[in-house]
């Protein structure tokens, strides 16, 4: 089971390195999503299933969707390319698919090997995380909600002034 950790760590590092070196933002996002999925596999192997699920749902799901929305709004990728939109460049899908395929093989191995149990040792169940979150960390949860509210107001303000300025 340790091999799963090291393989997905390598996948995450390779995908991250590809993320910061791409020219096309959409390709970079694809690689970054693969990197987040690999990190989620790492979390699962480390015995943190709750955080692994949150990583996939919130990070790779919600936050990356924000990035995709902004890229689609700006249409940056079409200005970077010359005649042909670089999104449709031949072979751009091979790298992320190969990395994701490695993760898929790991998933099949884990399912076949351990029948749904967290990898090999003791894991911290989500119920315990929830008890910690709403017990000793209650103030921090409230502060996080306050921070998110500030982020909401800030994003609304910055987005609104652009419309009013037109």
């Amino acid at each position, binding site marked *: 089971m340790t091999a799963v950790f090291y393989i997905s760590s390598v996948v995450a590092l390779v995908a991250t390195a590809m993320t910061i070196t791409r020219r096309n933002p959409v390709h970079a996002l694809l690689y970054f999503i693969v990197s987040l999925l690999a990190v989620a596999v790492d979390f699962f192997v*480390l015995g943190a299933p709750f955080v692994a699920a949150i990583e996939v749902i*919130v*990070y790779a799901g919600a936050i990356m969707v924000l990035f995709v929305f902004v890229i689609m709004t700006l249409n940056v990728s079409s200005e970077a390319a010359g005649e042909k939109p670089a999104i449709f460049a031949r072979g751009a899908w091979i790298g992320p698919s190969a990395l994701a395929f490695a993760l898929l093989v790991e998933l099949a191995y884990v399912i076949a090997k351990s029948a749904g149990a967290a990898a*090999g040792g003791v894991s*911290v169940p989500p119920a315990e*995380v929830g008890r910690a979150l709403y017990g000793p960390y209650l103030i921090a949860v409230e502060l996080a909600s306050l921070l998110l509210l500030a982020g909401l107001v800030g*994003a609304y303000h910055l987005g609104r002034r652009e419309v009013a300025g037109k």
Partner: protein
Amino acid sequence: MVTIPMEHGLIFAGALFALGLAGVLLRRNLLFMLLSIEIMLNAAGVAFVVAGAKWQEADGQVMFFFILAIAAAEVSVGLAILLQMYHRFKTLDTDAVSRMRG
């Protein structure tokens, strides 16, 4: 976890953080800089989860939860600034906005 030494997990987190830092320093595109900041926040979360798994406490995962909230707030404001910048300057190059007005 017993089977994986904590040092390896921390080295992994450090390597991820270094990649994110390199991205911030090397790229001049605001979108990629935001993406690299996300990479660095994620690496910090990995370090927390690795440390939490070492002592088998829930605190590491709780801290990752807070890092997630911080990342969400940061990226919403950052992307709003990015949109604003693109509408004003028609570029995402951070060198184009390196001067103050006045």
